[in-house]
């Protein structure tokens, strides 16, 4: 990874809708190079997705929670499938240290979150689960989202 690549990614992390002409002006990298680089990043899966962060509560989704699950080995695949296909699961990851999966869910209210958990428990024999409601999103997706700090991080990573 070159410094220029890190810079391109950080501009996109800061604002995924940035125009290539603006990025070119800021980075002194030609537009055609930026275009090619971004395409390559997409093809190789370095860029996974360009998306918008949204305050879902404005649309009536008042409950956001982090839930961690653990299940016996034979039940893990089914749990993963259930979590993966559920439309209210915003993000899903594997985690270690006592737990197997962690999800971030978005629901209209607490009742719906509880219904979701009940539904999962009816279908999978869980070893354990724990729920933490999100009171405030203080920062989200901020790593390498500032070209200035990205340069600083690059300096320390060399």
């Amino acid at each position, binding site marked *: 990874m070159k410094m220029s690549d890190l810079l391109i990614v950080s501009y996109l992390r800061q604002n995924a809708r940035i125009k290539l002409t603006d990025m070119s002006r800021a980075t002194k990298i030609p537009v055609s190079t930026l275009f090619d680089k971004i395409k390559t990043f997409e093809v190789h899966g370095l860029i996974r997705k*360009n998306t918008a962060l949204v305050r879902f509560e404005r649309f009536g989704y008042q409950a956001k929670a982090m839930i961690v699950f653990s299940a016996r080995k034979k039940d893990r695949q089914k749990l993963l499938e259930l979590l993966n296909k559920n439309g209210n699961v915003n993000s899903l990851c594997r985690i270690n240290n006592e737990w197997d999966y962690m999800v971030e869910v978005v629901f209209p209210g607490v009742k719906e979150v509880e219904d979701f958990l009940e539904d999962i428990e009816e279908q999978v024999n869980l070893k354990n689960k724990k729920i933490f409601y999100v009171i405030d999103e203080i920062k989200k997706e901020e790593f390498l989202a500032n070209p200035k700090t990205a340069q600083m991080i690059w300096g320390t990573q060399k």
Partner: protein
Amino acid sequence: MGYSKMKEREIRLVNEFRKNSRRSLTNIGMNIDMPLSTVFKAVNRLYKGQVITKNICLIDFAQMGFPYKLGIFLTTGKKDELKKFLAEHTNLNTLLRLSGDYDFYVELIFKDMAGLQDFADELKDMQLIKKISIHFVTDVKQEEFKIGGEK
């Protein structure tokens, strides 16, 4: 135009932005059969009203040379002090305030185990932590929620 009609338009637009926020407004409008002028006005409303807070690019940090993603649940007696320390940390990706057993969930990205150990030492030196649970995180899906259950 009625409130519900306006809301419906906003929902369709937000879901399009969630799918791919880098597309042009013309392209987005074409996808949902909405004139460009309407798209433009509605998008401006969504930004001004802080409904869309940010357009971001989700990346595979491991490919960028940062293979360690850590998710940490923390409880402290000094919330403001810990929040300030975490929010300003160079390796911070996400910071959430929680209810329940833990005060915060923090996600950090590191290049190597040494960086991770430095962070753990810094945290220990501050003597702010009452309870901590540390996990390595591997993403399966990210930011996939669509309003109204749209696929």
